[in-house]
């Protein structure tokens, strides 16, 4: 357990290094990449121009560049974003509770409120949603570049709501609008064409998980309608093996199943299918290495149509571990309730209530 704690703290320390303090940003704003240095020498500039010509864009002219790339054209650098700001601050909030380390910067929620879809920023994604929805934009553009389009992403908005809920800041401007966006994306069926509502995530049930996490762990009750519908969606799509174990398969069944288990638990569902899925996850672990299959975490596209995928095996392992321990907590809670025992503070985070 000591090694597990060390690993967690090391992860937290790493995340802190992605804070973007350069004006107009400040404490509590995080980006996907660290501060970048634009190409300076002649050959670097030439290589940068070739690269830009090849991928075309999106040209955000930001300040963050990929790690370990000595040459990266300024045009393709990105800005801090709502997604990283949300998930890192949520992790810091949790670590403060668990480890007693410093939490997030005071007032980090203001960054989300500053970049909203208020009609003044050009935004064409998703096309199904009218301009000026009020939900949270993905990119914290320090300086708007003509032609550089911002966007709304359902997973990003779910993550922002989760962070706001954890920090007790659901009165933050945009929270109601973000919840409305998520409910519409689910209840009107937009999410079934997932690429129409998310530019950065794959259709792998991670969306289901993030919305339900905001609901159950973040206390964002306003997304209850979406959570209930997503849970029903999962129960309709489950598959069963000959040995009785259950799974979901959208291309990465280990990851898909972990997300489904967590979603159902967050939705307050205690169907037997959850136990069957836990058995599937236990049986599918790589006996030699202790991992599960790699999954696609992020997707992005260049203006030239080049698609880039960020994949991870460790991400799957993290999600499966989370699913297993949550299931154990829910099961223990059920046993104590059945025995008429007293519930503990841990029971409060074991699983959500059924929004129905």
């Amino acid at each position, binding site marked *: *357990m*000591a090694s*597990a*704690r*060390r*690993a*967690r703290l*090391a*992860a937290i*320390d790493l*995340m802190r290094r*992605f804070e973007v303090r350069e004006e107009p940003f400040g404490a509590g704003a995080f980006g996907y*990449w660290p501060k970048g240095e634009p190409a300076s020498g002649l050959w*670097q500039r030439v290589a940068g121009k070739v*690269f830009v010509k090849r991928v075309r864009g999106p040209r955000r002219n930001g300040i963050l560049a*990929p*790690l*370990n*790339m*000595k040459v990266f054209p300024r045009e393709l650098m990105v800005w801090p974003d709502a997604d990283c700001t949300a998930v*890192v601050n949520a*992790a810091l909030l*949790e670590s403060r509770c668990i480890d007693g380390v410093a939490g997030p910067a005071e007032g980090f929620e203001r960054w989300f409120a500053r970049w909203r879809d208020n009609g003044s920023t050009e935004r064409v994604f998703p096309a199904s949603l009218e301009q000026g929805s009020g939900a949270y934009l993905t990119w914290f553009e320090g300086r708007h570049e003509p032609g550089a389009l911002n966007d709304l992403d359902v997973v990003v908005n779910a993550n922002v709501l989760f962070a706001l809920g954890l920090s007790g800041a659901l009165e933050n401007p945009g929270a109601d609008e973000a919840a409305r966006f998520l409910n519409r994306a689910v209840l009107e069926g937009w999410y079934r064409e997932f690429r129409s509502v998310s530019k950065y995530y794959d259709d792998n049930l991670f969306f289901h998980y993030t919305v339900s996490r905001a609901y159950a762990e973040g206390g964002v009750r306003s997304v209850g309608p979406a959570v209930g519908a997503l849970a029903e969606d999962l129960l309709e799509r*489950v*598959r*069963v*093996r000959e040995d*009785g174990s259950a799974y979901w398969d959208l291309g990465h069944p280990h990851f898909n199943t972990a997300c489904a288990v967590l979603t159902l638990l967050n939705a307050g569902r205690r169907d*037997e299918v959850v*136990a*069957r899925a*836990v*058995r599937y996850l*236990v049986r*599918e*672990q790589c006996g030699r*290495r*202790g*991992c599960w*299959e*790699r999954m696609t975490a*992020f997707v992005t596209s260049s203006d030239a149509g080049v698609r880039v995928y*960020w*994949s*991870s*095996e*460790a*991400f799957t*392992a*993290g*999600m*499966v*571990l*989370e699913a*297993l*321990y949550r299931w*154990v*907590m829910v099961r223990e809670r059920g046993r104590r309730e059945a025995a008429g025992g007293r519930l*503990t503070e*841990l029971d409060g985070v074991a699983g959500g209530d059924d929004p129905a």
Partner: protein
Amino acid sequence: MKGVCDEGEGGIATGGRGGEEIDERALASTVARAVDYLGRTQTTERGGVSGGTVFSGRLASRASFGAGQETGAGSGDELFLGGVHTSRALRGARGGGGKVGGFGGDGGVGEAGPAGGDRSDAAV
């Protein structure tokens, strides 16, 4: 897909083999090995990278980060992403082992191995 047979969708019933209790030892062992795996794949070092072009940067990042930070674009973001979820998962291991008792407590996790490792030679 490895280990997955498609016997059909929907129709989960109660009882039968699916209703059996999950073996506690198997569950504890699964968690212990997974935590050990995450410990082995985690590194916070970025150093040792050189290369004057975007493309050599891709190769260098894959080669230098080691296991657990496989990045499609070779930028190291995976480490960032994995860090978030590593943290969440380890919180779970703590909750299960330390308080609820389902995972067997401190003795069940074991020490993490050295950082880096078996993906350091992965091709981009």
